[in-house]
């Protein structure tokens, strides 16, 4: 997933990664150490990649001005229209699962030019036909000011592309060995028939080496436990 994310980072862009996002942080750093040395990288809670002095307010103000080209979000539920639920599963008053809350996601999903949605679990309880509550809508009516929005959804099984015309996720590529049947079984909404689907190339030995060395070392400053366990394979 980290190498898939790295390939989406473009050199010279301003790229930010928020809270609880070690996989995007790893991918962005990998890109920064390879093809995107001139990207401006912002990692929340990282001592070396946090160019703000006045807390997250300064970060959010910067984002509201359209300062970020690429940002990352996730969801307790994600639906086929790119809607994200960070509020609750089930009734809000008596939720089955209380999620952390939308925080800035309903702003960043509109204002960051491209948003990559990531989720390390690909299952029917996460990828649903319709989220219970929309913290961040995938699309908006034309009168709503919205320069940005969903771009891709990256999971351990596949990459969805967000089709702006159809306002829906379509399968763009799958990880090696993932069959269409498995993908359909583990996705809670009907997959759009998009014809040919590419297979995502395996990480190169160079990418793996960088992930296990420089990236791991840098990510450890924010996610020590993740750095300890995630790069061993």
């Amino acid at each position, binding site marked *: 997933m980290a190498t898939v994310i790295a390939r989406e980072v473009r050199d010279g862009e301003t790229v930010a990664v928020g809270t609880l996002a070690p996989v995007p942080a790893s991918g962005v750093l990998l890109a920064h150490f390879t093809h995107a040395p001139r990207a401006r990288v912002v990692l929340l809670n990282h001592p070396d990649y946090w160019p703000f002095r006045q807390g*997250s307010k300064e970060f959010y103000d910067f984002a509201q001005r359209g300062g970020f080209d690429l940002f990352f979000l996730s969801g307790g539920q994600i639906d086929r229209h790119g809607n994200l639920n960070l509020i609750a599963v089930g009734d809000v008053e008596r939720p089955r699962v209380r999620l952390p809350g939308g925080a800035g996601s309903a702003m960043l999903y509109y204002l960051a030019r491209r948003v990559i949605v990531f989720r390390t679990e690909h299952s029917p309880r996460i990828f649903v036909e319709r989220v219970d509550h929309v913290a961040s809508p995938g699309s908006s009516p034309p009168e709503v000011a919205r320069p940005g929005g969903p771009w891709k959804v990256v999971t351990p099984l596949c990459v969805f592309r967000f089709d702006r015309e159809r306002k829906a996720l379509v399968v763009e590529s799958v990880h090696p060995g993932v069959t269409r049947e498995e993908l359909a079984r583990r996705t809670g909404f009907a997959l759009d028939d998009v014809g040919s689907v590419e297979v995502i190339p395996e990480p190169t030995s160079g990418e793996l080496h960088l992930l296990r060395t420089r990236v791991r070392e840098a990510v450890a400053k924010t996610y020590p436990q993740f750095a300890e366990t995630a790069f061993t394979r």
Partner: protein
Amino acid sequence: MAVPGHVGSDYERLRPEFKVIPNPYDPAQPVMIVPAIRCDAALIHALAATPDGTLLLDHMEDDALLAQASRVVIASAERIVTRDELGRAGEGVVLEGIHVTAVVELPRGAHPTFVRGLYAVDAAHLSEYVVAARDDEAFRDYLARYVHGPKDHAAYLALLT
């Protein structure tokens, strides 16, 4: 205040105090407005403080904003220093004492969370808390042991191994 984005999300349904109005500067465009949060009290922990309540705060956190949104601000600090020493006490942002109601010296006052540069998160203790929080009886035991039991912060810290 106005917040960008948000229009069309379920916050319109779930938070009736969040309102969507025509943007006064471009009436064709809807914009969400939210009321300011006004807290009765804020409890914040500083890297260092002067006796008049001026605080040196972690620049990655929003404590200065929280203090300014609250009627009463009670600060604890790793150490009390002079104004001169505050400037040399380390990286951070300074919040002037005019925003602060009371200040107390409390080394390791952020435990089990962290103070950047001084001590890390106590992951084992947080795990203990998470397990205890799963049921009422276990949580009562946790409170008795760590919150109501110790007579002061030093006694609390002495419980930790």
